[in-house]
């Protein structure tokens, strides 16, 4: 049974419990005989409830609010980076340390084989239980984490191996120590250095894409998003707490979540992500193996495409991918475009 259910998951869980109960009953010969005597067809009963369950699940997940998406992305049972690494790679050797002064457990990384090829895998890592959560700082990386990530990426680059990044963080750590250790520079440096990489980089947002802390390991040639992952410039709670539009009230985070357009679909619309990967019914946490499998397929597809490009082509494409992000109005360009008429119409905004 799943623990830590979200409110909107409860109707499904109740049906799950019912189905399980019925199956247990049907497995008991005495009860089965009893039922037969009463002309009750267990199989039919169960099938009926299962159908209802499917329907409820479809309804629930068709109507998730942006805030529900936030909840899904943060679901305590959601598969984390190390789960995916375990499920879709072989020969993983975790490597540690930034070679400066620390190892940050909020980011993990190491060498592995993925679908037959050596890869460097890197990702934020949240903790499953309270102790691990604290140890991993809830997936909020410190400067040492970003430095470790970059060290591993540059190692992959040196040895011409592609890089897979799993993104899942509420935000970068922002306390006094993070500030003293140069958290801003650590993130900025990663952003810049990732544009120098001469190997394919595919990033997958598997849960929370939290602002600069996410982006710091997510400058990819491709950025994929799991269906229930989110990607946001600021946590909705903080946005609500700051803006008078939301009464400067953290509890109005759901409204902020809607305004911020943080879903995977929006990330694709804005060009920040390239593909949304549909999750198994009810979300990745209901079937981690299936989620891993679809992630594996998508990562392999994108990697395979990128592997046909030369390092220079890769870097040029990566530059252009980010170069065009943003939306603005350029009246002058519009006028010029209009007057050119027959000329190539290149829209200024994407």
């Amino acid at each position, binding site marked *: 049974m799943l623990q830590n259910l979200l409110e909107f998951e409860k109707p499904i869980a109740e049906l799950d419990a019912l189905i399980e109960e019925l199956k247990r009953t049907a497995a008991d010969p005495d009860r089965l005989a009893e039922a037969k005597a009463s002309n009750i067809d267990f199989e039919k009963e169960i099938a009926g409830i299962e159908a209802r369950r499917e329907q409820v699940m479809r309804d629930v997940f068709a109507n998730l609010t942006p805030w529900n998406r936030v909840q899904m992305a943060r679901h305590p049972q959601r598969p984390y980076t190390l789960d995916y690494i375990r499920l879709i790679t072989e020969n993983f050797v975790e490597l540690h340390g930034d070679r400066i002064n620390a190892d940050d457990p909020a980011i993990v990384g190491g060498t592995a084989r993925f679908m037959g090829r050596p890869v460097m895998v890197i990702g934020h890592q949240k903790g499953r239980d309270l102790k691990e959560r604290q140890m991993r700082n809830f997936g909020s990386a410190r400067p040492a984490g970003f430095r470790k990530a970059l060290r591993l990426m540059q190692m992959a680059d040196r040895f011409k191996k592609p890089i897979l990044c799993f993104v899942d963080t509420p935000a970068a750590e922002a306390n006094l120590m993070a500030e003293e250790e140069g958290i*801003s*520079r650590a993130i900025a440096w990663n952003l*810049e250095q990732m544009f120098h990489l001469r190997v394919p980089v595919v990033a997958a947002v598997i849960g929370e894409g939290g602002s600069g802390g996410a982006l710091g390991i997510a400058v990819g040639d491709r950025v994929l998003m799991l269906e229930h992952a989110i990607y946001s410039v600021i946590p909705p709670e903080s946005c609500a707490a700051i803006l008078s539009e939301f009464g400067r009230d953290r509890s109005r985070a759901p409204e902020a979540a809607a305004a*911020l357009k*943080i879903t995977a679909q929006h990330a694709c619309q*804005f060009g920040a992500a390239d593909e949304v990967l549909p999750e198994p019914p009810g979300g990745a946490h209901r079937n981690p193996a299936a989620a891993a499998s679809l992630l594996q397929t998508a990562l392999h597809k994108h990697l395979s495409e990128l592997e046909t490009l030369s390092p220079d082509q890769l870097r040029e494409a990566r530059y252009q991918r980010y*170069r065009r992000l943003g939306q*603005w109005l350029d*009246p002058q360009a519009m006028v010029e475009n209009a007057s050119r008429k027959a000329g190539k119409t290149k829209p200024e905004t994407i």
Partner: protein
Amino acid sequence: MGRGKWFQRGDHNDARKREKMAENLWLKCPRCNEIQFAKDVERNLRTCTRCEYHFRLRALDRVEITVDEGSFEEFDANLYSCNPLDFPGYADKVKRAQEETGLTDAVLCGFARIENFPVVLSVADFEFLGGSMGSVVGEKLVRAMERSLQKRLPLVLFTANGGGARMFEGLLSLMQMAKTSAALARMQENGVPFLVVLTDPTMAGVYASYASLGDVILAEPGALIGFAGRRVGNQDMGMKLPEDFQTSEFQFRCGQVDRIVPRREMRNTLALLLSFFEEEAAANAAKSA
């Protein structure tokens, strides 16, 4: 200085209040409390005549005290925000900021000369939505970087981006961090210099991208510089913070800033640095121009 309150000020359109103050004859220094003639402060490059507290500078004033007279040629002035998220209230905010500041968005970019060294100059204005970076700021900065690269001219950038990424443009703002870093990576690879001057305030998404990527990073004294404001993010700021937390001096101590340079020395310091970065080509270009 109201450390940690910068965001609130920006959000509340402190600009309006400021303009009203500017009409005023008198100004009170928030550090030493000295009440002085506003004109005297202006003449003193907007630093306190008694304690050298650095008041914020409007973008055009910054340009004026930094470049050789008449040398600034603005480019890409006509890009406008378009509220891509339909974020509640954003369009109004932009309109009001445009009216109050006379700017189209939070950053000015152009060609200029500093002590006769040709440069590309970029200056942000805190009064325009806290100088925050949305699509327009990102695009203008990247175009400035691309011009730097193309002409092999140093880029001199004054930050003053209080809010970091402009949250009203959501993920598009976040992506400007990567976009500007991409352009800087090209400059870096091609050996075109990037000089940053951190001014009050420089935070969050701006400090965590281009503002931290200068080949040389200078800072004005006493500026608020840091990653997360106290109300942004969910970190526990309950711990005892040092007196100078998130100031220029703090960042200098932590190895993030090359020099803290008082405003009156900035132009000279930039010129000395530009003399280091000067290339034969640029030098010749300067002579023949």
